[in-house]
């Protein structure tokens, strides 16, 4: 299982702070597709995915027990 964290404003869209999903072995790009199916529009906001507290690349593969966080970009100031 993979633990998914939804950080800050992205939670308005997911309606939950976190969840678990059976996504080990998938790539980050595949995680995005899974998330877009479940939460339409989640990708348009330009969030990045961090795996185990490191920003990840699209081809990075998720391993059992990993934590993937969706972190929205922030532009205000």
């Amino acid at each position, binding site marked *: 299982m993979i633990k998914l*964290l939804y*950080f*800050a*404003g992205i*939670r308005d869209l997911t309606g939950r*702070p976190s969840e678990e999903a059976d996504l080990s072995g998938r790539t980050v790009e595949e995680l995005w597709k899974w998330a877009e199916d479940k939460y339409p529009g989640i990708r*348009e*906001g*330009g969030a*990045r995915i*961090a795996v185990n*507290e*490191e*920003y*990840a*690349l699209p081809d*990075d593969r998720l391993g059992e027990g990993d934590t993937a*966080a969706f*972190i*929205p*970009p*922030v*532009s*205000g*100031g």
Partner: protein
Amino acid sequence: MDGRYSRQTLFNPVGEAGQQAIGEAAVAVIGCGALGSAISETLVRAGIGELLLIDRDYVELSNLQRQQLFTEEDARQMLPKVVAAERRLLDIRRDANIRTWIRNADGPLMEELAGQSTLIMDATDNFETRLLINDAAMKHGIPWIHGACVGSSGTVFPFVPGQTACFRCLLPVLPAVNATCDTSGIIPPAVSVTAAIQCAEAMKWITGNPDAMRTKVHHFDLWSNEQLDIGVSRIRNAGCETCGESPSYPELKVRAAGSTAVLCGRNAVQILPEPSRPITLDAGESVGKRIAGHVRRTPYFIEFHAFDRRLVLFGDGRLLIHGAKSADEGKSIYHRLFG
């Protein structure tokens, strides 16, 4: 013992040498809204040698909820933010060396600032200007301290040339939609925490403590009481146009002139003039009188109402169109006024 900066020199990692370094440092603060006013006040109080402050905006009532240097009287007078900020900062510290620009940030200005600064503080409200700061800082080999906030959350990261991935690596594609203070609001504590962490990072660099600086991007949310610190090693792009092997610093070449921007937190559209035909305050005044009958003129701008919108023309030729819903509407109004 009871000198002005005694409580700061008592803090060991600063000390007398660090305080002297602070007094000799020049810091450029890009933007004087919520983050910029908090950062400027903190740095001036801390004894910063020189503050270079740039902002294109004036004080409005809706700023006062979170922008700490400004008063109701500043909003009533519609003072440019850097003018109001400088007044207050000089009350706080008469010997502060402050230079201000009432302008839109563009490549040449950013390079000028980078060339004169120890580091750059990000207090802007949009990604485009951050890419500009990123290019200028990396090209001139100085750090910039990224900060941004919205709602109850914020992000801080010190980009140090040669040490880390850069902002372009982090955000290779600008988001299509994005939560702003306009759409999601903001609570003042999110501003204060962002600005404070930025200032702490700046003090580390200035006082010769670079090893204490953050190496992970700090994200916090004051409502959920969570934070994430995220590493940037994997996403560093060797082919990056800013921090890669053959940097081209593309943002510095973009001509901002003639462009429009929908302003965060302002419910307004800004039109920049073509440099070949800037609109003067005199020209604006006569157009405004003809169309609106009545204009308000201050040393800094002309204000009048037309096309169901409130229009403000600045001395540098920028036009702010309050209430405009899109860049297209803004451009259309600009051309109806000035051809």
